[in-house]
């Protein structure tokens, strides 16, 4: 089961970090394309097929924010959000060929991951680890005095950390890289 993309959404639902994960083909190193320029919603900058696919993913992620908001709302009315597990939301919505999972921090930062379907039994567990790592990286990024608060995340250290976390995730899921 492969991770297709990862998104970090801020508390007013502004996008902070959106990336597409592409498994490498033909033995190239694991590269990822960053879709950091959120202003480029209509993909005018580059017009090859890759960008249109990324745009599609962005829309799917955006659609899942609705179900995320619903999940958070009902949870809050329920037993309150004091337990450690309250961060993990779980399966948000199944899309055409993939699932979107969500995670919310206590400061209302949402992390979404889109994975393709598979019969992997430990899927949720691995995803939880991935989300925890992303959360840690995010916290470290926020502690940098130079980080702008509610704009997109631009930091080499953060990018490197995310690359590593995604790589570890894919490896533990037995995806063949090249």
């Amino acid at each position, binding site marked *: 089961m492969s991770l297709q993309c990862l998104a970090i959404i801020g508390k007013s639902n502004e996008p902070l970090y959106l990336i597409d994960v592409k498994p490498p083909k033909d033995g190239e190193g694991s590269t990822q394309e960053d879709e950091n320029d959120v202003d480029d919603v209509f993909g005018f900058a580059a017009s090859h097929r890759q960008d249109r696919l990324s745009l599609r993913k962005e829309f799917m992620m955006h659609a899942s924010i609705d179900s995320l908001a619903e999940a958070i709302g009902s949870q809050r009315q329920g037993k309150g959000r004091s337990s450690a597990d309250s961060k993990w939301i779980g399966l948000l919505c199944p899309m055409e060929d993939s699932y979107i999972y969500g995670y919310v921090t206590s400061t209302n930062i949402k992390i979404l991951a889109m994975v393709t379907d598979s019969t992997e039994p430990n899927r949720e567990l691995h995803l939880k680890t991935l989300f925890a790592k992303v959360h840690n990286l995010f916290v*470290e990024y926020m*502690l*940098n*005095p*130079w980080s702008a608060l509610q704009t997109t995340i*631009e*930091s*080499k*250290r953060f990018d490197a950390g995310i690359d590593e976390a995604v790589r570890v995730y894919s490896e533990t899921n037995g995806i063949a890289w090249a």
Partner: protein
Amino acid sequence: MSKSSAAANGHALWQKMPKANAELFALTYGTLVTELVRDYETTEEINEQLEKMGYSIGVRCVDEFLAKADQAGMTIPSCRAFGETAEVLAKTGFRMFLGISVEVQMISDSSFSLLIYENPLSLFVELPADPKWKDLHYSNLYCGILRGSLEQVNLKVECTFVKDVLRGDDVNEIRVELKEVLQDGAGEEYQEE
């Protein structure tokens, strides 16, 4: 003063000092630097301001250092060579105030380098990618502190950051050069005839 006793003194003094939370310390310094960035335009001015702040800290720190050492029953004798000054600074001084260990590399009789491996001021910090930040010496406070404290013991020095981990090097290196040994500070009116 031998190297090992300087280190031992450092450890002992560190135990006696009141401690602060490292993250709070690093974040406070971080906001200080970002405020300076907002107030000043060029990195030279920011570096200069950091050095001035460090100077004023250093001037006060040296008395605390010598007094605490006295109270703890250690003697820090007058240094006979600049190299001894370096050892005391690195092993006892930095150890006492920050709890970090610093290496000394003597360059010549009147200059040495201090190699700082872990810098508590720059915890979590990453300089933005913009090339103008390459000249910012984030921890320039240290240079001021060294200059201030050594001036109080009649050594006029110049300190600069030669290597900085935030800019990609593997270690922080501060070069300290002795400019002159000052005479005891009483002004002309007070000199005995």
